């Protein structure tokens, strides 16, 4: 008799380990983000579903901006009500959009904690500049992001 594969797509170990990782991130986050407002700048926000939902589950309100320009316009209007900014590095053709946001905040004298969340090589090259502009990063992976958020909030 011909053997038929079970229609099983995801390995059990991956499921259990993902559950463990999620629980670990929830523990790391604790109550640090409850009631806080996070502005998240990314032209592909769908990439950040899990850490964003973790923050929301922990009581943070997360606002999305699809570009640095949009983020700047929001911050100009209500900087005092944003507790943390998370930004990617590259947006479309602009590979240093994250740096441009940091430069704007620096010039405007806005003392906001900012995390550059990116795995791009360009972000790695600019680590020194990111730190000089007072930001944290580049942070790689949701676990490290959540750890950075819990430290900064």
């Amino acid at each position, binding site marked *: 008799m011909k053997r038929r*594969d079970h*229609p099983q797509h995801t390995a059990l170990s991956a499921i259990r380990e993902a559950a463990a990782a999620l629980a670990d991130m929830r523990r790391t986050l604790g109550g640090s983000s409850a009631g806080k407002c996070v502005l998240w700048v990314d032209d592909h926000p769908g990439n950040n579903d899990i850490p964003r939902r973790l923050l929301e589950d922990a009581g943070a309100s997360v606002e999305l901006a699809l570009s640095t320009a949009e983020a700047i316009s929001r911050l100009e209007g209500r900087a005092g009500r944003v507790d943390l900014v998370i930004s990617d590095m590259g947006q479309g053709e602009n590979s240093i959009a994250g740096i441009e946001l940091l430069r704007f905040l620096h010039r405007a004298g806005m003392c906001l904690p900012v995390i550059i969340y990116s795995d791009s090589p360009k972000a790695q090259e600019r680590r020194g500049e990111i730190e000089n502009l007072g930001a944290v990063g580049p942070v790689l992976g949701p*676990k490290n992001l959540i750890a950075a958020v819990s430290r900064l909030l």
Partner: protein
Amino acid sequence: MRLMVTSFGIEQALSSTSDGDSIFHGMPPVSFRSVNEAFMPDFELLVLCDQIVMDGSSFDRLVDSPARAYSGVADTFRALRDEGRIELVDFPHLLRSNADLLEKMLDHDMRTLDQWVVPLRESLTMWRHFAGMSMALWRDERQELHGASADHGAGEAAMRSHALVHEIAHLMHRAHGEASYLTFAVEEALDSAEKRKRREYRQPLREVLRAYLAYVNANLVLSNELNIGFHDWLDFTPFYSMKFLSVGKREDPAREGRDQVEKLFTVAFPDLAIGDTSALLKALNDRRIIDLRQLISDAVLGKVEFDEGFAASVLAEVLRSERRAGRARRVLGYLTLPIGFIPWIGTPAQKVIEEAVGTSMEGKIKREHQWFYMLSEIADSSTGGQGRTDS
């Protein structure tokens, strides 16, 4: 007792899914009670078993190239094999010859999805607890990876640790892991009956349950084929309980026995717990293990309750026995005194008689609670003969 020890991911013998690079793949269950510098074998269960039945290739994987987290477990199983206590069987072959049955079982299980909601919720809770306990160990493995990578490039340690990172930290480094999204959706689906009705939650729930039940069914079929009980990861217990309930069984008997040993070693006599391979082997090779197993059987049947009262009464009885044995020794000393006056051979003869008769009398007096004396002696030998609280 013969017992089958499961191999994690064994159901993949029938599917195209593979998690062969996970450190858990093919590994036996480990203790959820304690995690030290590495995973610990489930000594509470092993002490009940004369013979362990395992999958051959899983055993080879465990003893030949264990991940660091599994090194202690590997040592124990190696020692058990050297003592002739491991019997190897080809699990994938058994599963392949039951492929049709397994398929039917899974189809049957998946028809009523909601019956598995509570078991899955309980299972994930247990797993998260264990993961929380052992997360520090996982972090150490990750740090070791970075260190080893820096020092030795892609050395063996780095390769092993990489396997750990790849699976355990699946989500931590990859935001888009399918498993992560599935798990997230399932967590929400488990919390809300309303969400479970919606396709975007129901589908992930189906997929996760399918993975769990394919594994659970594989172990049930293997156990049935081998006609012996089995021991699996603790977090699958809620699934087995549901399965056993449907055939009129309260609980897996092996699990009940194991739970009673754990109770004995955590509630009644924590100082006597078997906590390493050497102690396990001493217990297994001691005739008095029968007494311990009988005690555990009595506890499973509800004849004994391992609580603090039990501990107090055992200690009181042991002390009484010790006093009686002491008195008997003294009386024996008086009775054999005349032998000591026989010229030349008197004193040695007196000693020999005292020892022979005394040991026999003591054995009779201490016939009760043989298991306690055995565990005390093992505990004493592993602590270098330093005094214990029971004396």
